[in-house]
């Protein structure tokens, strides 16, 4: 038996940002949003487009989250801004991490009763408390935020909210926002999308529509990941954004082991490590761990990635990611053995259990991380 909830509103078109955001705010009657982004995005043309799209008499307040700010501090800042501004919605744009934080920030706000009942989300689910509206406008790294699985936020991960309830009220995907992104960011976003799609597809949960979304996302990202590094055409960017969206939507099957490991290592190192770079290194190890129980499910992935018969899926994925302009070892990102020790405990003891066929234990996680140190 399965309960499948579909899902949230998505606007997806070239140049859709202005029209979509304006119509969502008007439709929900929202006039006092807190806008969450990092410093770079607030001073970019992205922000100019976003702020120019507001309906008249919108009083927005900015909530700037620096890269160096911990998730705990960032959540607290969002909450403070929201209450102080008597806000009625959240808008998160740009970095996937910040969109992810905004998703989590909704829970304590709902508990505090800050969301008025008029227009907050009332998605069907287990939770009776209404979440504030969240409008997400992803940039180059899409909706590829690392799950918050650190010890700091274990309480949050045990909320009563299902994966589908955590999704934003509306997601606005405008591929024109990703034009001109550098090859490193593009590669990282592509790896993130591929990993999400693969891990969602391999998850034990029974959810055929999510499997279809994941395989479609994998197809799109596999066909375009290497192209997008040197090809800034809108059609290529659009395919990559679609893949990223698919990965995020398929995520309702649960968070994969590689993603849990990536988030835990970031938390252990107390640094915002590039999740795409981490996933590129972890995914082959996780696939090797599940090679026997998931043998049959590996076939469609092999076909889509064009992996030669003599290679295992794990090796094929490693080769597929090989030439990407991302760090080849964890040590290049400043990760140490001490960080790995802490991170392997976190994956097992805190946060959501990864939705893998074989749940990695502490030794498995440490072994995978050490193999790419």
């Amino acid at each position, binding site marked *: 038996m399965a309960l499948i909830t579909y899902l949230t509103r998505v606007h997806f078109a070239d140049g859709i940002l202005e029209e979509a955001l304006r119509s969502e705010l008007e439709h929900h009657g929202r006039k006092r949003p807190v806008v969450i982004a990092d410093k770079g995005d607030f001073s970019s043309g992205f922000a100019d487009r976003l702020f120019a799209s507001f309906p*008249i008499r919108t009083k927005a307040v900015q909530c700037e989250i620096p890269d160096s700010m911990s998730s705990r501090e960032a959540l607290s800042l969002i909450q403070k801004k929201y209450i102080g501004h008597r806000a009625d919605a959240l808008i998160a744009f740009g970095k996937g991490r910040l969109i992810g934080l905004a998703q989590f920030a909704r829970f304590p706000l709902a508990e505090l009763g800050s969301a008025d009942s008029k227009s907050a989300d009332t998605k069907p689910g287990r939770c009776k408390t209404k979440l504030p509206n969240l409008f997400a406008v992803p940039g180059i790294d899409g909706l590829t935020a690392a799950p918050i699985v650190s010890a700091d936020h274990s309480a949050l991960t045990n909320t009563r909210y299902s994966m589908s309830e955590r999704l934003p009220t509306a997601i606005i995907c405008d591929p024109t926002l990703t034009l001109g992104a550098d090859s490193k960011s593009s590669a990282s976003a592509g790896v993130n999308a591929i990993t999400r799609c693969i891990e969602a597809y391999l998850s034990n949960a029974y959810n055929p529509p999510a499997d279809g979304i994941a395989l479609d996302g994998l197809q799109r990202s596999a066909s375009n990941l290497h192209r997008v590094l040197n090809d800034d055409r809108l059609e290529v960017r659009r395919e990559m954004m679609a893949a990223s969206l698919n990965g995020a939507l398929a995520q309702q099957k649960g968070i994969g082991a590689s993603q849990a490991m990536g988030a835990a290592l970031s938390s252990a190192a107390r640094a915002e490590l590039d999740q795409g770079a981490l996933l590129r290194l972890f995914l082959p190890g996780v696939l090797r761990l599940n090679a026997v129980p998931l043998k049959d499910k590996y076939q469609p992935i092999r076909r889509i990635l064009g992996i030669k018969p003599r290679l295992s899926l794990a090796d094929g994925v490693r080769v597929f990611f090989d030439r990407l302009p991302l760090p080849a070892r964890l040590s290049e990102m400043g990760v140490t053995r001490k960080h790995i020790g802490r991170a392997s405990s976190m994956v097992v003891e805190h946060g959501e259990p990864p939705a893998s066929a074989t749940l990695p234990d502490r030794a498995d996680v440490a072994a995978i991380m050490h193999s790419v140190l």
Partner: protein
Amino acid sequence: MSHALSVCHGEFGRAALYMLDRTIITHAHREGHLIFYLGGRDGRVIINGFPYACDGSHAIAVSPWEPHSFETNGDGACFCLVMYIKPMWFLENNASAEYALNFGAPAVRITPKISDCIKRLTGLLMDDESRDLFDTMLFETTRICFEHSWKNARPLSPLQRARCRFSDFRVRRSLRFMQENLTYDVEMECLARQVGLSRAHFFKLFKRQMGVTPNIYLNTLRSEQAIDDLLTTPKTVTDIAYDLGFSSQASFTRFFSSNVGISPSEYRRVAHVS
């Protein structure tokens, strides 16, 4: 003096029955715009510099942000039904439509089906009843006109459209500046300087990317705010004028009448929200 017999606002945008005997100067809307001639003196709509007859044979379709003006042919009033349709509302109801609600051609031949829709919409607007039926009819009319407008038109590449629009950071910055400062007296000279361009270069770039001049864009924002104020606040017309940066009620009334078609006080008297 032009008059309105009925103005209706809703989720779809707005619709109105106008008796127009005065010129409406070049202006633009963010909505898709349809004009249907109902009777009286013929009119002309000039879209992007090209004239289109507003008579019983064709409806006029104006895409979002297309500059256009209206004038009557000689004395007397032109009785017409005008609709301003929000692109997203249209999209919500019609999965195959594109979000921008760009029409393929400005003149849409009136078919018996469209003629029937116009009559029913006019009746519903006059009676001010059956809101659900009105929305359904309005959607159907828009859908038919939209499809007809593309019958012999060559589709534009959405890629090209998205690329040319919003691609220059100075234009983007100016859009935001106008949005955030529309209640002040925004000087174009100053705005051009603000984004690092000469006035002439700024106007040329803005027009190329947005399809309208910065003046028309700003006028659209001010008209929108004025309409919203008239509809949703108890503010007097004088207060609305001052709040929008006009020096007097008279100058605001002149602005409003020449951009919207009727005076602000009449708009408030006639308009209602469904």
